[in-house]
C-alpha cells in the first residue's frame, strides 16, 4: 500500500496491527468476519478513477464552478422558496472554525457549550422575529418542517377532541397500525393554494400514511390572498389544521388577522399553522405569533445561508409554549452546572427518537444545526436596526422593480394584493411564453424569475439586486419581448 494523506497509519503500522490481531492478510480478516460473502477488488471499479491529488481535484472543481453562471455577473431575481441574500464575510470566517463544523450533535453538553449556546441564541432570536413562544434548534427545510407541523397539529387535535382514547398510558403518536381504528381518517387538513407547491408535495408524502385528507382553499383570483369565503365554506367538523403561508408563494401578504378569527372561531377549533419561506418579511410585516398562530413552520435559509443549488437549507419550527411537548426535533435549554453557573443542554429529549423510539414525536435526529448557527451569527450582525433596515430595503427594491416592469407596458399585474419582496406578472405578448422569457433572460445573465403559468412569472428582489440590475432587467425584458415573432 502506498501513502494516502488522510490515513495516519503507515504500511508497517498496518502490518503490526495484523500481527497483534494474529491475522495474516486482509483476505483472512474479512473472511473471518463476513464468511463466504465475496470481497471485491476495488481496482476493478469502473466508475471510479485512480485517486486524484489535491491540486488536480481543485482545478477540476474550479473548472466546474467556472462553467456555472458567474455569481458576480448573474443577477438573480428568482425566489420561489430560496432567496439570494447577501452573506457577510464574518459568517464564512466564523463557520470555518473547526470547533463549529466538525463536532457531532452535542450529546455531551460539557464539551459542546459553544454549539448549544449559539443554538440557544438562534432559538431566542427566531422566537423574537416570529413572535412565537418557542423555536426549536432547526429542521431540514421549510417543506419538511411544515409536514412535521401538520403531523403535530393532528396529534394536538386528537388530544383536544378525543372520542378516540389511546391505550392506557399511551401518548398520541404518529402511527396507527392496521389493527387499530385510524383516528385520523375523519380529519381534514385545509391548505391554502398560496402554499409553495413543493411544500404541498412534501406534505402529501408525509400525510398519506395517516389517512387524514387534504383539501385546498382557493385564492382570491384578484388579490391573491386566501379566499375567506372558500375557507368558511370548507371549515367543517374534523378540520384539524388550516395552513396559510405568509407571505404566500405568490408573494402576497395574507391577512392573518382576518383568517385567524375565522379559523379559531370555528368549533371544534382547528390548529392554525403558518408557513413561510422569506422570514425577512417579518422585519416589516406582523409575524405569525402576533396573530395567534399555533405553529410556525417554514424556511430560514435567507438568514446567512447560501442557496447551495437547493440544499442544505434551514427548517424553522416554532410553536406556542403549551405545545412544546409535542414538538419535533432538538430544543436547547438553559440550566446550571455543578458550580451553579449557567450552562446549556438539550431538553425534553423524551419526545425524541433516541429515547421514545417508535412513539417519538418525529424521527428526526441530525438536523441542520450548522445552518442554524450561521443564522444566529447573521441575525446578531443584523441586530435590531440592521434587520429592520434590510427588510425595508427588500420591500422597496421589489416595489421599484415591480413599478419599472409595469411601466414597460410588457407586463400586467397578476394579483393586486400587497406584497413584500416577491410578486407575480403576466407577460402580455402571447408570442413569448414564461419559459422562453426566462431562458432568454438567463442567457443574458439575468435569472428573471420562476414560471408559474404558461404566461406567468414569479419575480423577487433582495438587497443583492441594485437599481442598476433592475434597470438592466427592464431593458433586456423589452428586448426579448418586443423582438419576439
Amino acid at each position: 500500500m502506498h501513502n494516502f494523506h488522510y490515513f495516519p497509519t503507515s504500511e508497517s503500522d498496518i502490518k503490526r496491527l495484523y500481527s497483534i490481531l494474529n491475522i495474516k492478510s486482509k483476505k483472512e480478516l474479512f473472511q473471518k468476519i463476513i464468511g463466504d460473502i465475496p470481497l471485491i477488488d476495488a481496482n476493478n471499479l469502473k466508475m471510479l478513477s485512480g485517486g486524484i491529488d489535491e491540486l488536480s481535484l481543485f482545478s477540476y472543481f474550479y473548472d466546474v464552478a467556472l462553467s456555472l453562471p458567474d455569481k458576480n455577473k448573474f443577477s438573480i431575481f428568482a425566489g420561489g422558496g430560496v432567496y439570494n441574500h447577501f452573506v457577510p464575510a464574518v459568517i464564512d470566517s466564523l463557520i470555518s472554525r473547526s470547533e463549529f463544523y466538525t463536532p457531532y450533535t452535542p450529546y455531551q453538553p460539557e464539551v459542546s457549550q459553544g454549539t448549544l449556546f449559539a443554538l440557544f441564541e438562534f432559538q431566542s432570536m427566531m422566537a423574537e422575529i416570529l413572535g412565537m413562544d418557542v423555536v426549536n434548534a432547526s429542521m431540514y427545510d421549510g417543506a419538511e418542517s411544515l409536514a412535521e407541523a401538520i403531523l403535530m397539529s393532528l396529534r394536538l387535535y386528537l388530544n383536544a377532541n378525543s372520542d378516540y382514547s389511546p391505550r392506557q398510558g399511551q401518548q398520541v403518536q404518529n402511527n396507527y397500525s392496521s389493527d387499530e381504528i385510524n383516528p385520523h381518517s375523519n380529519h381534514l387538513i385545509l391548505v391554502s393554494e398560496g402554499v409553495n407547491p413543493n411544500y404541498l408535495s412534501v406534505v402529501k408524502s408525509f400525510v398519506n400514511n395517516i389517512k387524514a385528507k387534504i383539501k385546498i382553499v382557493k385564492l382570491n383570483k384578484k388579490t391573491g390572498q386566501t379566499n375567506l369565503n372558500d375557507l368558511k365554506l370548507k371549515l367543517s367538523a374534523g378540520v384539524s389544521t388550516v395552513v396559510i403561508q405568509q407571505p404566500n408563494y405568490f408573494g402576497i401578504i395574507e391577512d392573518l388577522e382576518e383568517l385567524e378569527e375565522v379559523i379559531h372561531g370555528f368549533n371544534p377549533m382547528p390548529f392554525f399553522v403558518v408557513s413561510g419561506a422569506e422570514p425577512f418579511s417579518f422585519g416589516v410585516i406582523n409575524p405569525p405569533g402576533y396573530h395567534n398562530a399555533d405553529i410556525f413552520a417554514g424556511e430560514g435559509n435567507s438568514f446567512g445561508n447560501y442557496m447551495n443549488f437547493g440544499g442544505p437549507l434551514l427548517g424553522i419550527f416554532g410553536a406556542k409554549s403549551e405545545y412544546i411537548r409535542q414538538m419535533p426535533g432538538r430544543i436547547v435549554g438553559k440550566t446550571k452546572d455543578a458550580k451553579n453557573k449557567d450552562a446549556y443542554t438539550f431538553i425534553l429529549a423524551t419526545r425524541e427518537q433516541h429515547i421514545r423510539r417508535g412513539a417519538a414525536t418525529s424521527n428526526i435526529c441530525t438536523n441542520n444545526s450548522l445552518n442554524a448557527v450561521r443564522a444566529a451569527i447573521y441575525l446578531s450582525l443584523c441586530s435590531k436596526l440592521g434587520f429592520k433596515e434590510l427588510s425595508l430595503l427588500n420591500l422597496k427594491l421589489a416595489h421599484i422593480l415591480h413599478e419599472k416592469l409595469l411601466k414597460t407596458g410588457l407586463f400586467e399585474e397578476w394579483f393586486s394584493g400587497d406584497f413584500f419582496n416577491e410578486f407575480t406578472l403576466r407577460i402580455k405578448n402571447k408570442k413569448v411564453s414564461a419559459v422562453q422569457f426566462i431562458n432568454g433572460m438567463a442567457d443574458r445573465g439575468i435569472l428573471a424569475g420562476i414560471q408559474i403559468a404558461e404566461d406567468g412569472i414569479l419575480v423577487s428582489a433582495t438587497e443583492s439586486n441594485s437599481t442598476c440590475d433592475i434597470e438592466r432587467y427592464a431593458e433586456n425584458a423589452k428586448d426579448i419581448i418586443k423582438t419576439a415573432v
Partner: protein
Amino acid sequence: MGNFPGISGLFFDEDLLIRQSSKGVYGISIPDCGLKDFELKKTSADYINKKFARKNDPGLPEVSEPTVVRHFIRLSSWNMCVDSTFYPLGSCTMKYNPKINELISSLGNIKGLHPLTPIHLVQPALKIIYDFNLILCELTGLDEFSFSPQAGAAGEFTGLKVIKKYFDIRGEKRHIILIPDSAHGTNPASSALTGFTPVEIKTGANGYIEAKDIERHLSKDVAAIMITNPNTLGIFESDIKKISEIIHKNGSLVYMDGANFNAFIGNVKVLDMDIDLIQLNLHKTFSTPHGGGGPGSGAVGVRGFLKDYLPIPYVSFNEGIYNISEDKKYTIGRIAPFLCNFGVLLKAYAYLLSLGKDNIASVSEIAILNANYVKKRLGKILDGADPFEDRLCMHECVFTDKAIEDHGISTIEFAKLLIDYGFHPPTVYFPKNIHGAIMIEPTETESIKTINEFLKAICKIRFKTKKSAALKSPRKTKVKRVNEVLANKYPVFKY
C-alpha cells in the same frame, strides 16, 4: 498527566449578545443598492396597508461586527471537535473532514447557485449528481440512488415509504417492520412515521440476529426487516444472507440501515448480502462534516425493481443532456423542496474522487483494524466487559460497564472522566441491550499513537480513579457537570 492532550486551558467567559447591546448599534454593512433620496425616506406604509405593518421590532441584540466575532470565537472555544481531538463516538463515524472539500463547496458559483436556474446553465452540477449516483451504485451493487433525503432518518423514512408503496401497488397489506433491539432509535421512529408497526427482535448471544429467531416473527403482515449491518455492536450480521433468503421467501423486503457502511466501503458490495434497499449517511462514511448536528445527507439506494418508487425529482441523462425529471411511475412523491443537499453531496463526491479506486478499500480495512485493536487491548484493560470477546468486530466495538462498575465508576462518570484527559467520550448507554454500554468507533483517520493515549487514559480511569474524583468530573471544561434534571424541570428555551 503530561502524556494526554487534556492539560488545562484559559477559557473566556462570554455573556449572551442581547446583554451586550448598545442602543442603535448594528454589525452589518447594508448594501448600497442605489436608491434615490426620496426612496430612502419612504416607510413601509408607502408600500403596504398599515394594518400589516409590524410595530414592535424583534428583540435582537444591538452589537457591532467585532463584538459578534469575539462572541462566536469564544463560544467556539467551548466545543470539542474532531479536528481538535479524538472523537470516538460509536456509530457516528467521526472521521477527518478533508479541508479541500470545504474549499470546493464554498466556490462562489457553486454555493450561489439558485435551485431553479434553467437546466441548460446547470449541466455541470447535474452531471456531478448523476455521476455520484453511478459510483454509489457500483460500490453497493444497487441500481439507483435518490439524493432527496436530507439526513439518515429522512433516508430511512424514504426507504420505508418505498416499501409501503411497493406493497400497496401489489395490493398486499403488510404493516410490520422487524427491527433488532440494537437498532438506532430512528429505525422504529421512521417506521411509525411511515405507518408501520415496528416489532423488536432480540440480538443473539453472539451479537447478531440469528436466522432461526427470525422465523417465529414471520407472517404475511411482515413488510420488511430493517437491519443495521454491521450492527451498532460493531458486529457483522453473520446470518444476513440466510435472513435475506427467509425474508424474501416470506414475500418481504430487506432494508439495510447503512449508517455503518464505513465497515464495507471498497471491499464489500451490500448487494452480495441480497438486500433490497439501503440508506447511506454521507456525513458519516463519506467524510462530510457533521456540523455539530447537521446538515447531512441520507442517499437511498435500491435494486432495479424498486427504481420506479424512488422520490422525485431526480437527475436523468438523455442524448447528451442532463435533466431534472419527475417521471417515475410509482414514485412516493417529493421528500424535499428541491433536488438534494447539493452542498453536502459535492463534498462526498470530492472525497471519493480523492480516494479513487486505489485507496478506497483501505478505508474500511484500516477502520476495521483500528476497531479490533481497540477491542483487543481494551478487552484486557476492562476485563470481562467485552460481551463478544472471541469475535472480531467491524468498524466499532462495544463494552459493558462491568469492569468500571466493579471499581465503583458508572458509564456516565467514565465518559466525563475521559473528557478531562482530552478525549471526547464514546457513545454511552447505547445500544440499549448492552448494560451501561460504551461504544467506540475509532475510524481509519486516527493513528495508533492517538489510540494508545486514549487506551492509557482508560487504564488510569479503570485502576487509579477514586469515586470522589469521578463524581466531580469533568473538571477542566468550561462548565462542570451540567444539571439535566433542572433543565427539564423548568425548561428555559430562550433569553
